[in-house]
């Protein structure tokens, strides 16, 4: 008990306050979002229930249904299915309706609850996050809604973990407390982070894994790439890949981090060999688990949206042009970008930094998105100015810049590549959306903190105060919109 107290006492008080902020925001989102209404949440729950009750993963292509009998009945009799994406429809919150459902639910067996054999498109995802949620499902007493609430709390814990890892990551980058605090407060207050930390969806686990990985990578570079540190960093990268197919770009970033650590610390060949061997051993172990679980399902390789199976005419110039037009205006000599009119504004501003919630039907006013976009542009310009003005410091910190920059580039390039491949065959689904940027949330926080760190010492706290105050109000507006959509 005393050692716990001592350990707790060592946690910096600003971090404790920010953990409380993240926990409160996550809990508020949990309550204000009706059950099964998050992005694909009903299918994620179907996966968890199947895994918890039968030990098997649902099929992505065959079967008689994606959900257990309890979930299916809740969706049908309490309106949680038909209200999806229909803001004019509300769930049946009346006590008599819920009691009727609970009475029916009490008659169900474990087999009924795990009946969601498929087809479930979500089962293309690897099983790590679902296994953790399945454990919560198993240990939670009560009915379906108790389980859903507790499973959402696990997502909340992952948000808190992301906050803690962002603190540690920012501690590797900054020497002053204020920018460190700003980076973490951004993660704790961003509405999309709070929302994804309150629904059943592996995106928040991806964010936690990427943030932990970046912290461990920078720590390994600072302290030296011992076999233990290389193994631990690789282990987190493996966990990320076992969480979602979209996290595959963490592998090249891991290689970059290891090479950077060796280049910076110049260890003896024997030490390099030990570090490489331990990383490879963990990587092979992860690949074995990946292969074994994939073999037990009909999902094949857990690709998810990351499945790059479309081998239609790939053209590097067309991909480059597509990425250019995603962010910047189209030149007259450019071929129009493939797919629908979807770009930076939709993905970064409306669906991520501002946010579109529930199953995208809860969105904010366009005035708010405009303000977010203008703020983003001003901050991006300030970020650029700070980097240019402090180029010697930036150059001196090239290892951290390399790892963080390569992580951001790898995630974005991978998303664009997956989107481009999906559109090549003439499809209209861009396959990417704002929440896929969540693994970058700590990097966004670091960028904001860099701006604060670059300001004059007297101005920095005031600018930080205004930005964090605005971010908090944005969260309140988003939370209120969700509460109003479902329950008012």
């Amino acid at each position, binding site marked *: 008990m005393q050692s716990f107290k001592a350990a707790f006492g060592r946690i910096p008080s600003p971090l404790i306050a920010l953990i409380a902020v993240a926990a409160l925001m996550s809990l508020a989102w949990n*309550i204000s979002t*009706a059950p099964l209404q998050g992005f694909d949440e009903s299918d994620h729950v179907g996966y968890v229930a199947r895994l918890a009750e039968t030990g098997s993963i649902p099929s992505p292509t065959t079967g008689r249904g994606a959900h257990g009998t309890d979930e299916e009945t809740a969706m049908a009799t309490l309106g949680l299915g038909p209200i999806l994406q229909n803001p004019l429809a509300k769930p049946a919150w009346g006590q008599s309706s819920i009691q009727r459902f609970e009475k029916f639910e009490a008659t169900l067996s474990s087999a009924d609850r795990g009946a969601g054999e498929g087809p479930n498109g979500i089962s293309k995802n690897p099983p790590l996050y679902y296994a953790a949620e399945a454990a919560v499902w198993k240990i939670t007493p*009560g009915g379906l809604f*108790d389980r859903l609430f507790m499973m959402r709390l696990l997502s909340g814990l992952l948000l808190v973990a992301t906050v803690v890892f962002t603190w540690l990551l920012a501690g590797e980058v900054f020497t002053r407390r204020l920018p460190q605090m700003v980076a973490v407060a951004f993660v704790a207050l961003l509405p999309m982070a709070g929302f994804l930390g309150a629904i059943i969806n592996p995106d928040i686990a991806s964010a936690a894994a990427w943030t932990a990985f970046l912290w461990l990578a920078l720590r390994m570079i600072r302290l030296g790439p011992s076999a233990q540190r290389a193994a631990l960093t690789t282990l987190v990268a493996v966990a990320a890949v076992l969480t979602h197919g979209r996290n595959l770009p963490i592998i090249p970033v891991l290689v970059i981090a290891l090479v950077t650590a060796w280049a910076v610390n110049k260890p003896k060949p024997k030490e390099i060999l030990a570090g490489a061997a331990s990383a490879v051993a963990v990587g092979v172990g992860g690949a074995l688990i990946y292969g074994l679980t994939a073999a037990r399902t009909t999902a094949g390789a857990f690709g998810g949206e990351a499945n790059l199976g479309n081998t239609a005419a790939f053209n590097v110039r067309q991909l480059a042009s597509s990425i250019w037009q995603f962010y910047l205006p189209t030149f007259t000599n450019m071929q129009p970008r493939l797919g629908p009119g979807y770009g930076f504004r939709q993905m970064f501003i409306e669906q991520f930094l501002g946010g579109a919630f529930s199953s995208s039907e809860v969105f904010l006013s366009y005035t708010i998105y405009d303000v977010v976009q203008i703020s983003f542009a001003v901050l991006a310009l300030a970020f650029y100015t700070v980097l240019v003005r402090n180029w010697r410091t930036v150059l001196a910190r090239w290892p951290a810049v390399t790892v963080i920059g390569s992580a951001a580039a790898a995630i974005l390039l991978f998303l664009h590549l997956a989107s481009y491949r999906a559109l090549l065959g003439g499809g209209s689904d861009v396959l990417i959306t704002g929440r896929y940027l969540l693994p970058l949330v700590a990097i966004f926080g670091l960028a904001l903190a860099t701006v604060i760190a670059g300001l004059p010492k007297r101005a920095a706290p005031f600018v930080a105060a205004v930005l964090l*105050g*605005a971010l*908090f109000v944005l969260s309140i507006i988003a939370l209120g919109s969700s509460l109003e959509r479902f*329950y008012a």
Partner: protein
Amino acid sequence: MRKATVGALLATIAVLLLVTVVPHLRTSAPAVEATPAYTPLNAYSSVDLRPKQKLCINNVPFSTKSRYAQFLVQGRPPTQPELLVTGSAPGYKVSERVPKAPAVNGQLNIELSPPARATAGGTICVLNSGSNAVGFLAVPPSAQSSLSATTLDGKPIDAHVTVTMLSSLSERRIENLPSALAHASAFVPLPVWLIWTLGVLVVIGVPAALSFSLAASIDQRRGT
């Protein structure tokens, strides 16, 4: 420095809340009690109720605050149909003759006396006592499922007539907040008072925690 920074944080929050959230909370909107047959988003159909015909919608939840049944009517006039509307459930029966119900923007709001006890499996029936047909907006079954089913003259039909139960046609959002929080408590294992406490903690506790964290971070070098 610390006090001024915390002041800037709290002032930013107060000003932005006053400019954005408070005006919104002062606006009015219908207060929904239940949507047993949903208003469709993009797939519509219509059920014509001819003179002397009667349509019934089953599985309608009546709460003690269900004061209005809102239908959506379609098509050309008459916009003031003559109807007899009845609501019934075990231990509850209410009947309302609507001589010339005014449909505003296609919405037909029928005032009903709410039951003393909430019930889930009620029925609302509408008898056309006028001389003109009335088109009720409905959801085609292929487009969206519904909690309720519709019958026309006792026979099931292949569409769900939409109905929304309201406690008020127009209520300030701030006044509707207690109901919204009570509704939200239905699906979580938390009592309403705890949800209220959480709400207060979010609105007051989060700025307080941010203030503390910000003040404690000024002029500090990184430790752990």
